[in-house]
């Protein structure tokens, strides 16, 4: 049973007051804590407890009844390895917080806890600590008490501290390795030599690597606070070897003290702290480097996925589609709708009328599959949207690129407002499927699954596009039209059809990008606007109609942005990237990679 810290109980208490009848605060708090400590025990659990009266319970009872506080402390310490039995933890917490009571008759003293359930008068059944059985009066009816009427068992501050230590150390033997690890790190920070033997004994049984590492760190960190220079220095060096990021602050402080007070600490400490700090800092720098690189690559992947469709249509038709971002948003909203259909349904409005769609109500793996379906569906919906845009508007504007820019901007305004009217101006919630949430850590660098997925997805999309362009007949025609439209038309390529197909494909890619973005960004009417300028920059920087150019431009923009951000902040970093692109174009006016042709552009 998990025992929340008292602060939590305090903050929740007023709510309880409203729920319960009017009672004094103290009483309510006691009741509430007791209820937490007893973990809302039901009778079955109590019965199970009766079946196996444990030695731990005996020790506990003995500890409570012991006259001498030193004896009590000793007994409490004995319980360190009893953490797996929840009653011990409950009872100790209750004791520490004054919720353990004593029934004193002439010759016996029986420690007991109150059951969580109370009757109408706020009274609860008393459970004996020794065996968990209810106390009964002569007629065999369970005796009930109100916590407010009882006096808790006395504790001294020393005893409370010992109880706390024991409680803390329980976490060390938790079956969950992550909880163990966190507890070790927390206890290590306290640098209390009292914990050392526990760490050592734990280390012998520990098999999980992360937890072992944490134990080593905790031991060294505790030893590093030692007064003995030899122990201290070797512990500090060991921390350096362990590359313990958590202890860097302590080491730096120690270094400062050692530098200020060489007489007390000695040369050895100074050099040891310096070496250790340097080692850790180098490690952190490397970690940051890799972290930045990963973030840069994942940002690049996002931009790449978003810009690829734009680059293809721009290369083919020399048209910048200002509504590209909104086509992405179409994909993102498609993901939202598919999610709703798989899950609990969704509401939206069409022409002011609210439409409610019933979902399949799936959960778990079936629901998670929505994302895969959504990727495919968003390709189709966005592709169709692109097709419609091309057929109704853009095909009349092929020879007027500047005007097509304006027309598509108009389309983007209209689409944004349609999103607003259909799905509301607030962001909609697209949940991550379970296989995309979470992350893993390698050498203190965090790799989030959704980011990794996007990187993989970007590679997949680039591969798909490459396949289309170089292995299919449509691809051949696209390349022919890109290089020389008139000549391609002369030899029988239906350029109009190629335009149409390419535009639909490019829009489909944008749609998939949008569905992908729904995992890492907010899905709202202005989703498209956020990435569009970056996309344009990638297209301008990458050069026309060249996959390699687009990929390298995307990586360049993404990584540069992430490298600059820690120094300059998000905004200045972005501005610097923009300025850098303008300057770069001085050197290569047509972008990174240019398809050579003999025609004179413009």
């Amino acid at each position, binding site marked *: 049973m998990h025992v929340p810290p008292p602060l939590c109980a305090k903050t929740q208490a007023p709510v309880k007051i409203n729920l319960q009848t009017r009672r004094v605060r103290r009483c309510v708090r006691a009741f509430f804590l007791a209820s937490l400590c007893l973990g809302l025990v039901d009778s079955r659990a109590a019965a199970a407890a009766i079946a196996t009266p444990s030695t731990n319970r005996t020790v506990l009872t003995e500890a409570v009844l012991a006259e001498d506080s030193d004896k009590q402390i000793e007994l409490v310490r004995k319980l360190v390895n009893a953490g797996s039995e929840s009653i011990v933890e409950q009872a100790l917490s209750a004791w520490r917080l004054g919720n353990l009571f004593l029934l004193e008759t002439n010759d016996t003293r029986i420690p007991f806890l109150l059951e969580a359930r109370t009757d109408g008068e706020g009274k609860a059944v008393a459970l004996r600590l020794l065996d968990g059985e209810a106390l009964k009066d002569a007629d065999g009816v369970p005796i009930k008490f109100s916590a407010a009427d009882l006096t808790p068992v006395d504790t001294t501050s020393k005893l409370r501290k010992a109880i706390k230590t024991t409680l803390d150390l329980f976490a060390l033997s938790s079956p969950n390795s992550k909880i163990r690890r966190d507890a070790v790190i927390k206890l290590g920070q306290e640098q209390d030599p009292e914990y050392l033997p526990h760490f050592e004994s734990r280390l012998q049984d520990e098999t999980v690597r992360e937890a072992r590492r944490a134990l080593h760190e905790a031991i060294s960190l505790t030893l590093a606070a030692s007064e003995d220079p030899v122990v201290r220095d070797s512990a500090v060096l060991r921390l350096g070897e362990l590359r313990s990021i958590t202890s860097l602050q302590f080491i730096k402080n120690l270094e400062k003290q050692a530098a200020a007070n060489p007489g007390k600490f000695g040369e050895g400490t100074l050099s040891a702290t310096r070496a250790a700090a340097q080692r850790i800092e180098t490690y952190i720098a490397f970690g940051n480097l890799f972290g930045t690189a990963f973030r840069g690559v994942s940002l690049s992947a996002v931009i790449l996925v978003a810009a690829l469709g734009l680059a293809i249509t721009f290369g083919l038709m020399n048209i910048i589609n200002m509504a590209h971002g909104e086509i992405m948003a179409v994909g993102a909203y498609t993901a939202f709708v598919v999610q709703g259909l798989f899950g609990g349904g969704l509401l939206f409005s069409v022409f002011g009328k609210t439409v409610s769609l019933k979902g399949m109500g799936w959960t778990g793996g079936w629901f998670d599959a929505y994302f895969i379906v959504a990727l495919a569906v968003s390709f189709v919906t966005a592709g169709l949207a692109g097709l419609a845009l091309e057929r109704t508007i853009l095909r009349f504007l092929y020879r007027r690129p500047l005007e097509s*820019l304006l027309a598509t901007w108009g389309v983007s305004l209209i689409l944004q407002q349609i999103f607003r009217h259909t799905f509301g101006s607030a962001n909609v919630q697209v949940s991550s499927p379970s296989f995309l949430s979470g992350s893993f850590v390698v050498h203190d660098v965090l790799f989030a699954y959704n980011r990794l997925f996007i990187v993989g997805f970007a590679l997949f999309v680039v591969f798909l596009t490459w396949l289309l362009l170089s292995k299919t007949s449509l691809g051949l025609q696209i390349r022919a039209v890109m290089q020389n439209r008139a000549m391609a038309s002369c030899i029988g390529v239906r350029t109009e059809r190629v335009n149409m197909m390419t535009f639909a494909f490019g829009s489909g890619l944008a749609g998939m990008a949008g569905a992908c973005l729904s995992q890492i960004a907010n899905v709202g009417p202005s989703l498209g606007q956020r990435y569009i*300028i970056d996309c344009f920059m990638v297209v301008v920087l990458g050069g026309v109609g060249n996959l390699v150019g687009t990929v390298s431009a995307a990586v360049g923009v993404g990584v540069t942005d992430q490298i600059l951000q820690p120094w300059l902040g998000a905004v200045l970093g972005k501005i610097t990237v923009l300025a850098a692109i303008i300057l770069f174009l001085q050197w290569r006016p047509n972008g990174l990679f240019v398809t050579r042709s003999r025609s*004179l552009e413009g």
Partner: protein
Amino acid sequence: MIKFSKLELLAVALAAFVGLVVLPCLNAFVPPSSGFHVTTFSLSLYGKYLTYAVLALGVNLLWGYTGLLSLGQCLFFSLGGYCLGMNMMMNISRLGQYHEAIPDFMVFLEFPARYPETGGLPPHWMPFKHFWFAGLMVVLVPAAVAALFGWLAFRSRIKGVYFSILSQALTYAACLMFFRNDFTFGGNNGLTDFKFLLGTPSLEAGEIARPADFIAKLSEGRDGVSKHLWSQIPEPSQKRLKELADANQGAAGEVLLGAELNKILATGLIYEERRFSEVALAPEIKRRLGQNPRDTGMLNLNRDLLESAFPQDVARKRFQGFVVNDPATKRALYICSGALLLLTYLFCRWLTSTKFGLIQRAVRDSENRVLFSGYATASFKLFVFVTAAVIAGLGGALFVPQVGIINPSEMGADKSIEAVIWVAVGGRGNLLGPILGAIGVNSLKSYATHSFAEQWPYILGGLFVFVTLFMPKGLVGLPSQIRAFWSKPGSTAADAESAAPLKPGKTARL
């Protein structure tokens, strides 16, 4: 000289007469009860449209005549606005929320800690105290930015869609920059809460004659006014002023005394009958006292009272700046906007009718041919770009006092594209179209956002699509388009395209 056709001359003269004379007169001399009265609010709104029309003329010069679609003209418009706005911020003179010598946002953002040596004012703000400097900057800043960007762009022969996208990126970057509080231009609130234009009633340097004597006079407190003023000055300052006066350091004393007196003048009316019993007040001042003015009016009156009380010590300030919210100022600003539009029109008319204009259009229609004929097209384009930026900057400078605020959203990418659509709606490649378009679309916008705000994006977006598809020559070209439609029955949108001879060589890209 510009050669006008009779019709054009008549139209321009008529429009100028109505716009510059009739409307202001209807505002000033016709009583509000009359149906012909033009409210000051409407006049200010029209003034705003006129500055937009100026901006549109600049866009047209670029797009309609040179074939450069800049999606960043609002950057220059806002830069002009910011320059004048800075001057007006300096004129607020302690009438802000915090009653400090520096603009409110600087107090709020704790600039005094950042620039302690100037009392919180960033050094580059200092010269904007002078109107002449701000006026110069209204022209120079947009010109410089345009020259730098244009030089970089045209030099490397960036054109067409590339130029559009890069100009959009430029304005986007600038917008992000101005949104930053650190950039010292007010962050996302921008500059606002203007009080005076061109001058200020506050005491400025050199307006206290013989500061040492004046300090002595005040501290002795022989008359009621002196006693009152001196009692309002906090003790440390009193002490310091006395020291300075004793040491005969007039200049330093004047700065401190000026600051303290300005604070007193801005906090409340200094008049009280008993206090001013020995002072002879002009009947005009007495009349204004009866109105119990506030804010700007109070400051003006305080200044006059101070001058009357100490005629020898405080200089008589004939011009205390125009009160921005005064109807007369609004009217004057409107007239200035109209005049600016007329001048810009005439300038564009002149420029496009010269040989330069001919080359401009040649660049638009086939830049390569012009280049191969031996013209440095980059320089031509640069000149036009800078000119358009200056025009936009001037428009922006008149826009700001009429609207009363300038903030970074004004230079957002969407605003610039909107400016382009005005030109497209009106008809580019001629000078009447952009003016019509700017006024027309903005009137529609005011009406639509007021009556059915939700539908406005549809209307605007539809306008973008419709105009580019079906009205390539805009409103101005509509008659000829209709004529062509009737003479060739059965023609469709594709023919409407051919009715647009903007790209004469309608050949495919070879």
